[in-house]
């Protein structure tokens, strides 16, 4: 249990400030709009549909080596944003470019630069970490034997026993699965890594391990990372800059310190989020 003294200033958990302003822009999103149409009733012959905007006129850019956090509650548009960057969605309006390559027009080139970790460790659950990682590595052109050596080194670093490497993933804890997912993403040395709530549902120890690993890999690979989360301490610890997203719109952007300052002296990042968005991060996803 954490006790807080009313009015006491919140501790500064922010990532150490790194000046990345001289580095090149890797990801550039301008006026991104993506909506979906859902059946809302009617009959089989005359169905009725409701349109909703999951991402609504979002613009931002991210520099090389930066960890950029997108904070918002469930249903706020974080995953849609990640899917648009992953080449899995075609925007209704606006552009998403990576190193100047458009994710729709230059899809094949963009895919070589990207990898991703999603909230659910999306694996072939019957396959072992070895089989999942080698499959993925080969898709990205890496030699199977080299990939096996690299994967083993990475997974040992994450605390996996060698025998776990050969057991079905379904027998592993969710924390371990998520570590394997991160190892998979970085095995192909991506230049941009999209982390979509990578620590959601993990116990504190696993969450801390994953966060350490993300920082380590960022430095090792000079990777640019987009992190979506609704975990405030995680965002403060990892992200160089943070954007608040609510109802598909970016409502504020800056370093953790800048965002806290927007809410007033002594306020936490969560206070700032509630004040700026009028939402509580813990709210349940609307169906």
């Amino acid at each position, binding site marked *: 249990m954490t006790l807080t003294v009313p009015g006491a200033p919140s501790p500064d958990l922010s990532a150490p400030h790194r000046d990345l302003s001289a580095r090149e822009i890797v990801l550039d999103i301008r006026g991104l709009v993506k909506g979906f149409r859902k059946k809302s009733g009617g009959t089989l012959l005359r169905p009725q549909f409701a349109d909703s905007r999951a991402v609504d006129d979002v613009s931002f850019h991210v520099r090389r080596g930066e960890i950029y956090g997108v904070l918002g509650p469930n249903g706020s548009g974080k995953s849609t944003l990640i899917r648009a960057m992953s080449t899995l969605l075609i925007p209704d309006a606006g552009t998403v470019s990576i190193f*100047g390559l458009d994710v729709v027009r230059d899809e094949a080139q963009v895919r070589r630069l990207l990898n*991703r970790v999603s909230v659910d460790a999306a694996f*072939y659950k019957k396959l072992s970490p070895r089989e999942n990682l080698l499959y993925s590595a080969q898709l990205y052109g*890496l030699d199977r034997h080299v990939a096996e050596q690299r994967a083993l080194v990475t997974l040992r670093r994450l605390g996996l026993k060698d025998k776990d490497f050969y057991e079905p993933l379904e027998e592993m804890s969710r924390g371990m699965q998520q570590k394997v997912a991160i190892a998979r993403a970085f095995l192909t*040395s991506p230049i941009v890594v999209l982390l979509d709530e990578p620590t959601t549902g993990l116990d504190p120890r696993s969450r801390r391990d994953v966060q350490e690993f993300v920082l380590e890999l960022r430095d090792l690979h000079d990777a640019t990372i987009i992190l979506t989360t609704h975990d405030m301490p995680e965002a403060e610890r990892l992200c160089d800059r943070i954007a608040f997203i609510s109802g598909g719109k970016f409502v504020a952007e800056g370093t953790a310190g800048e965002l806290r300052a927007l809410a007033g002296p002594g306020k936490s990042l969560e206070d700032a989020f509630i004040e700026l968005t009028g939402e509580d991060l813990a709210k349940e996803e609307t169906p």
Partner: protein
Amino acid sequence: MTTPHAPPPTPAPDPARTTPGTLAHQLRAALAFVFRDYHLTRRYWSWVLVFTFYDMVSAASIMLIGVAAHNPRLTLTLLLGAVMWSFLGRLFGEIANSISYERWEGTIEYTFMAPVSRLTHLVGVSLFAGAYALLRGVLVFLFMGLFVDIGATLGQVVQCLVVFMVASLGFMGIGLMAAVLPVMSTENGAQATNIIQAVFLLISGVYYPVSVLPAWLQPVSAISPATYALDACRKILGVNGTGTTFQPGVGLGAVLPELGILLAFGAVTIPLGLYVFGKAETWAKRTGKLKRAG
């Protein structure tokens, strides 16, 4: 002020990695699908065992109708149909359901964002599906040999295998077109592919000549590669006549027209399948269907 875009970075030289866009890169990616499907089959071995055993028993049961009728020609015709459908049906099913499998496993987004062309994807899935379907067809064939004297020479069997291989091209393309359905509808797509497979079983005359179909249905049999593959194999085995006895079989040279039609099927359906699949993929990206839960 922002720094302008840098040109796309050149990945650090890595001798263990193929260069994107090269044939070696696409070949390695195709083999990745073979690697994955081999291990999935191995891990799901009990299901594979059950389905293979079911295939063998149902094929033998069908063939025994010919034995009961004291008709060696009918027996071999039924045997041929059972083995061929075991092969082509499985091949079609594996390709058509490849998207459904991805949805069930929750990996569809990862596969579709990998730097792999859809052709490479199809080649990889088809390579394993072809080998797996062939192995099951051979097992069915050997199992039926436990019940009857098969009455075909090794040369005839090998020539029929050649026909199977050529026929598989058309089924790959049709399978790819059917794979569009699970892209479009998570709930009903997989079931729809089973309906398509069943229709092909009906119209191809797998266990009977097409001439016994109702007159309105007979022309439809022309759209199935299996119709021509069966015609070719029946000629090779000498069971294309009537009555109870075999006719002299023919060599591959005598079934060149059928082989030509089968090659044409492949030449048309594979590019068409890729085109249709590409359109469906674009549609899924516009509507947000290209995700695990559809």
